């Protein structure tokens, strides 16, 4: 009964998938459709198992923002630099064990890409901080 964040990345510091991946705008429309349908199907799988919490996709555009001092407008630094890690979206699942969270991530990682082959992309898995349990002593 622990929540995990499963993160897809558009790109990152390391290889984003097991093999080099062509950008999506060079896939066929059918391949793109199959990829998106797969994500919906996996969400439905997790719903049926009682594990799904939420899923979101993020726009590939955005900036970094910081406070710049009293009365001054926020400073923005963007768009994201080409070399920076970029989160594409996430799925949150509520599962019984870390092993199960890894299985869920592997399921997402199998999404089809060019030629219908599983992309095998790296999915980042992060455990939520929970409320402390009542009995500790």
């Amino acid at each position, binding site marked *: *009964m622990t*929540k995990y964040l499963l993160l897809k990345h558009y790109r990152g510091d390391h290889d984003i998938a097991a093999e080099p991946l062509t950008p999506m705008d060079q896939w066929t429309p059918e391949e793109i459709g199959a990829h998106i349908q797969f994500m919906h199907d996996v969400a439905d799988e997790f*719903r*049926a*198992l*009682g*594990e*799904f*919490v*939420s899923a979101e996709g993020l726009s590939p555009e955005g900036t970094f923002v910081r406070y710049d001092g009293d009365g001054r407008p926020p400073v923005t630094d963007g768009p994201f630099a080409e070399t920076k890690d970029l989160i594409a979206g996430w799925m949150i699942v*509520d599962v*019984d064990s870390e092993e199960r969270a890894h299985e869920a991530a592997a399921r997402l990682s199998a999404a089809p890409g060019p030629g219908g082959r599983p992309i095998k992309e790296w999915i980042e898995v992060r*455990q939520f*901080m*929970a*409320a*402390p*349990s*009542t*009995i*500790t*002593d």
Partner: protein
Amino acid sequence: MDDLLRALMPQVLAVLVRRGTDFAAAEDAVQDALIEAMRRWPEQIPDDPKAWLITVAGRKVIDAQRAEGARRRREQRMHGEPPPGPTEQQDDTLLLLSRCCHPALTPASAIALTLRAVGGLTTAQIATAFLVPEATMAQRISRAKRTISGEQFNRPGDVRAVLRVLYLIFNEGFTGEIDLAMEAIRLTRQLAAATRDPEVDGLLALMLLHHARRAARRSAAGELVPLAAQDRALWDTGMIAEGVRILQAALAADRIGEYQAQAAIAALHDDAPTVDETDWVQIVSWYDTLLTLTDSPVAALNRAVAVGECDGPVAGLAALGRVDSALPRWHAAAAYLHERSGDLHEAARLYAVAAAKASSELERDHLTRQAARLNSGAAAPPAQ
């Protein structure tokens, strides 16, 4: 009327289940009877509401079976029986709970099903308590019902499995609107009234003795307050007295178990007017007993801390050295003992390590503050 229905639903479910109705079918029928009750009762509540519900639910079971075209003539005869008298209530709580806590279910599923079928919480309430969408929780409960529908139930199941689930529910505490600790206490009370098992009483005592301290566990700012620092004037003395009474009666049965031992330790803490008056010698003794009943490494870790209080931090650290350092809170315990032994630099370092390993934000923040406290007063660390 809502409270009445909530109290009656599990009893009605238990009657159907005990008569041999498949669990999932019984649960569906009870829900349908509930809908009818909510439609009809506001006009006039029947003289015997429980009998009304059993009759209506029984009819729903038959209707469902006819709709499926199943041949269940024997069950139809059973459901034609007159409604039960008060003596039929005795075994039902344990029977129902042991089904909901069946070992074939994962802890999360057992917890969800128990809160739904026995606790009478709505799916939406349980979903909110566990911060998942309602549809997800509904599926979890459905799957749990399907899992146990296939199982054979000839006699009340293992009480230990039930106690484990109730303990987990209690540990969830208070999440927003639903007080799961109070739900756990309510269900455990019910079970204690229906059984003569000192471990059930032991668990109830343990819950009460911990719940009594709740008001002192958080500062006004919402920060975690450890036991040693808690304002004991905020503890619920009435609840402590009740917990002690229940524990003493349980121990008198002379069938010691792990929940009774844990409750005894909690009682010793609750008995001390100030932390300095804590009877650590007795607490260590009870941890020794606990460790003969369970090989829980958490118990061994907590014992090491108690040994540190009793025999000094060096002894505590020696005991801690025999516990797996991968255990949650090991580094926090080591930090505490090092601070007590005067090694503030090592204590600060260990508090920082513990903070990084903490699984809750409240604990992480607390441990970070301890590291900061020592760092702000401690000598500068040696040059790297």
